[in-house]
């Protein structure tokens, strides 16, 4: 079958007076979610899987857009014959609320003022992102998802979905994730936020149509990239190799390849992401705590979902022990959970690049969910 181009679709809801009530109590509406689908929804709508993207991801999880030169962010995992097999399953991925890739976020136009929201956009939470996507699933007429899945922030969303809407899913696959941000995770985000907010061009979030806070964005992205790799993967990829020179320069120009890589990543980030969205989404991650007001064991009471939890040995941003806490709490509730820690050097990025092991696990796990 010839490759078909993927088109992003849009769903708008929460029109006044039925705005979305956020966790903070603030009302937001209308809300638009950009989403993509891959594969075909079957007649009884029982083969749908909802994928959640990570912090700077988007709805374009797989396949190719007509105009773009890159495949979706999880293309090696989603497609015909792949782990999330589009010959069997109907895959949905939406840009999160607060994002900047087509869904309503701080860079969207506030219908009241006619200007971008900027910092007048309400603070959103992981819970709000999940609730907004439930509207999308209802809109698509899907009563029960075969699975929800995601890595990193996407894993937090899948976890939140599984406790908030347990009857709407059969299974959940959580990858390289956590149930609450630790002090170190919050601290790393805060450095990234301060980098953006200390850029004069950020201008308290009011930079639309003006000079972008490019330097702040670049620094925040550099920090991000360091946390997504491991010491070993950086050593293997860069070592002390020099960039375009034979000897170090004894000046503050670019010497090492790793410097050049981070600068390139930093510089390209400002082109593809909105600084305010980064602030809002990173804050949403920091606010998340599934054990808030209860304990983790209590959070999973009464759930029947089948879980697969995957971590990576070299992931120091979301270390395995945090997922093991989730597994432990699930076992205390007698939940059907499988857990694996994949041995790899790719760090937190493993969920995007360590395809072979994940593919086997996900495809077999889903086969068994269907069989049940």
């Amino acid at each position, binding site marked *: 079958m010839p490759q078909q181009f993927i088109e992003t679709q849009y769903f708008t809801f929460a029109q006044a007076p039925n705005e979305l009530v956020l966790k903070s109590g603030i009302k937001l509406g209308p809300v638009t979610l950009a989403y993509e689908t891959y594969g075909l929804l079957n007649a009884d709508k029982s083969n749908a899987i909802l994928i959640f993207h990570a912090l700077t991801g988007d709805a374009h999880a797989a396949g190719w857009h007509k105009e773009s030169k890159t495949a979706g962010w999880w293309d090696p995992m989603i497609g015909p014959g792949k782990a999330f097999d589009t010959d069997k399953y109907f895959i949905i991925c939406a840009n999160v609320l607060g994002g900047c890739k087509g869904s309503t976020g701080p860079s969207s136009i506030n219908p009241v003022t006619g200007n971008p929201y900027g910092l007048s956009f309400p603070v959103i939470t992981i819970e709000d992102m999940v609730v907004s996507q439930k509207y999308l699933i209802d809109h698509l007429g899907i009563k029960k998802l075969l699975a929800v899945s995601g890595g990193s922030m996407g894993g937090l969303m899948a976890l939140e979905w599984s406790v908030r809407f347990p009857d709407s899913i059969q299974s959940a696959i959580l990858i390289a994730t956590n149930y609450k941000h630790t002090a170190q995770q919050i601290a790393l985000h805060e450095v990234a936020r301060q980098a953006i907010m200390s850029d004069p061009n950020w201008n308290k979030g009011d930079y639309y149509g003006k000079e972008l806070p490019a330097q702040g964005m670049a620094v925040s992205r550099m920090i991000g990239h360091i946390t997504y790799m491991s010491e070993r993967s950086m050593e293997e990829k860069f070592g002390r190799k020099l960039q375009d020179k034979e000897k170090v320069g004894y000046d503050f120009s670019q010497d090492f390849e790793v410097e050049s890589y981070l600068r390139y990543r930093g510089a390209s980030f400002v082109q593809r992401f909105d600084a305010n969205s980064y602030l809002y989404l990173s804050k949403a991650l920091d606010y998340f705590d599934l054990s808030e007001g209860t304990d983790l064991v209590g959070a999973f009471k009464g759930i029947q979902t089948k879980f697969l939890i995957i971590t990576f040995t070299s992931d120091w941003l979301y270390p395995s022990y945090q997922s093991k806490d989730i597994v432990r709490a699930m076992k205390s509730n007698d939940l*059907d*959970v499988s*857990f*694996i820690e994949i041995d790899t050097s790719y760090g937190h990025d493993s969920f995007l690049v360590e395809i072979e092991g994940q593919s086997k696990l996900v495809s077999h796990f889903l086969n068994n969910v269907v069989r049940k």
Partner: protein
Amino acid sequence: MRSDHKYILQMIDPNSHVLDLGCGDGELLSMLMKQKNCRAAGIEIDEKEIYKCVERGVSVSHGDIDSGLADYSDKRFDYVILNESLQEVMNPDKVIAEALRVGKKVIVGIPNFCNLNARLQIFFLGRVPVTEGLPYKWYNTPNLRFLSIKDFRDFCLDRSITIEKECALNAKGEIIFAHNLFSDIAIFLISKASVK
């Protein structure tokens, strides 16, 4: 079917809730699910085996048995299986005690270090024995503990653990007479009245 699996299968009542410590590729648990309609979960330390468990549809946790079973409340399982894994743990005493805490009954399968073959190898060859049940050399064995059927009986007696069944096997099948002398492996069904 592996003969040890056959005898373990016979020991387990249908519709039971079973935990297998060191479940390997999940073959035994998969049979328990299919043939005896059991609810099954496993713990396994080898990453490669986890993939096979997931493929079979066996729920498995990647981890080591020594780090404990604190996740589970008392008498949660009808059976806890420790087949060919007890001799590889750091702290067998603690593992057995934990297995008996979370399981109403525990099935323990051990290689018999003191069968006739092993005894002859030590006596006549003067070397550490290599047998059906213990097929490794001293330098590549995963086993940390070497015990016989009698050693395990003593262990249970000292701890007021009841041996409900004892099944001794060699390559030909079940041994009826002189278990400790003729068997390669033995499978015990044990239990302990909970201490209040």
